[in-house]
């Protein structure tokens, strides 16, 4: 039997970590408790972060929006600031798991679990999310792309936690897009996914593009070459098609129970073509 602690503050959490530094931390439990049951992890104690007030909520700050790492996915999905400014993230949340999973799971958990298929991750990459890492001794900030280093692997030292996510408010992209290809709509782990932010001029030319793919590499894949290839050109099937070989080259998918690598590579490229649906002046972020 393992002790389960539910600290109510960071102060209390640091005390618990002092006493049991190898304790496993969780918030929603939708990943960790599955692994424990399967015998994949065997921590001496558990600390549940669901009641640490300092790790929850969405704060509208001067230039940034701060999201507490233990904020549930459903709270975030319904948050007016997220809906107004970060539709790409809302779209990722909307197709993550199922309602009860979103009521339990947290954004911090989705990041730290670092699944290549994590549905908030491509959005957080294109938004350039900065992560606030805290410990008893202080805090540091790291970009999400530097924090996640492999499947399930993040640069978190013992005694450190992911406390919050910072998103820059000034994001001029009018088009926010996320699409996941899975075997069904709910409860599907992505076979391949793509998040995109685009700015398109009145004459239909792509002025800026940010693209990120999930489930087609050990971490989220970004592809500057593909971004550059569609920038400066009309948002059309023809110009998007030209970028497909660049995407196919950038990704490094694997075969697994959901799909084989070749299929994933093909889908990753073809996901680009969906962006053409935004060309007819339909620049709303819906």
């Amino acid at each position, binding site marked *: 039997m393992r002790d*389960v602690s539910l600290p109510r503050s960071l102060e209390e959490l640091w005390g618990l970590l002092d006493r049991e530094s190898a304790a496993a931390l969780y918030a929603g439990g939708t990943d960790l408790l599955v692994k424990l049951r399967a015998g994949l992890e065997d921590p001496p104690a558990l600390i549940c972060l669901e009641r640490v007030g300092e790790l929850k909520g969405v704060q509208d700050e001067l230039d940034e929006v701060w999201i507490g790492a233990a904020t549930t996915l459903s709270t975030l999905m319904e948050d007016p600031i997220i809906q107004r400014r970060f539709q790409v993230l809302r779209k990722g949340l909307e197709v993550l798991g199922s309602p009860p999973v979103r009521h339990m799971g947290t954004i911090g958990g989705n990041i730290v679990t670092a699944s290549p298929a994590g549905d908030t991750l491509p959005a957080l990459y294109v938004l350039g999310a900065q992560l606030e890492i805290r410990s008893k001794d202080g805090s540091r900030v790291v970009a999400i792309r530097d924090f996640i280093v492999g499947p399930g692997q993040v640069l978190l030292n013992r005694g450190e936690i992911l406390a919050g996510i910072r998103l820059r408010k000034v994001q001029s992209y009018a088009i926010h897009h996320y699409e996941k290809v899975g075997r069904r709509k*709910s409860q599907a782990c992505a076979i391949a996914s793509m998040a995109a932010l685009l700015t398109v001029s009145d004459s239909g030319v792509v002025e800026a593009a940010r693209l990120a793919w999930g489930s087609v590499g050990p971490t989220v894949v970004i592809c500057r070459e593909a971004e550059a290839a569609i920038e400066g050109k009309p948002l059309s099937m023809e110009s998007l098609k030209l970028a497909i070989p660049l995407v196919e080259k950038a990704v490094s998918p694997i075969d697994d129970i959901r799909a084989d690598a070749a299929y994933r590579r093909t889908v990753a490229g073809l996901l680009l073509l969906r962006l053409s649906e935004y060309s007819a002046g339909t620049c709303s972020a819906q």
Partner: protein
Amino acid sequence: MKIRFVLNGETTELDVPGDRRVVDVLREDVGLTGAKESCGSGDCGACTILVDGESRLSCLMLAAQLQGRRITTIEGLGSEAQLHPIQSAFTQYGAVQCGFCIPGMVLATADLLKRNPSPSREQIRRGLGGNLCRCTGYQKIVDAVQAAASRSADHEKPLRDDK
């Protein structure tokens, strides 16, 4: 570990290991077998309960997390003498086949209708997306949820939550 919470309206105190799964506490320690275990990994929704009114999976919650919460299981939603309107609709529309998924379906519906009192069929499908029925009786389940929604709209006129 001593845990105090409200279970189906009654203050309950238990002395159980903090890392015991809530589905085991409910079924084996308390004797409420409405919440079912099927996948044990959050994929099927058979173990759905309401925690402070919100649907959660009791196979992915530990006993310690019950502390101070208000828990509703299917046993607390209606009674045999007086079914909850969602339960009546499920029986009237033939939404129940083997019945194993139904406690979860009914509680997930309660959560859905609280958030969206008059959902479209598409919204119902999404709202119940975490609950699997292997008899594949989804059409009648969706019919029943629609009927339950229109009945409560007729009788209660609940306040719209625009979220």
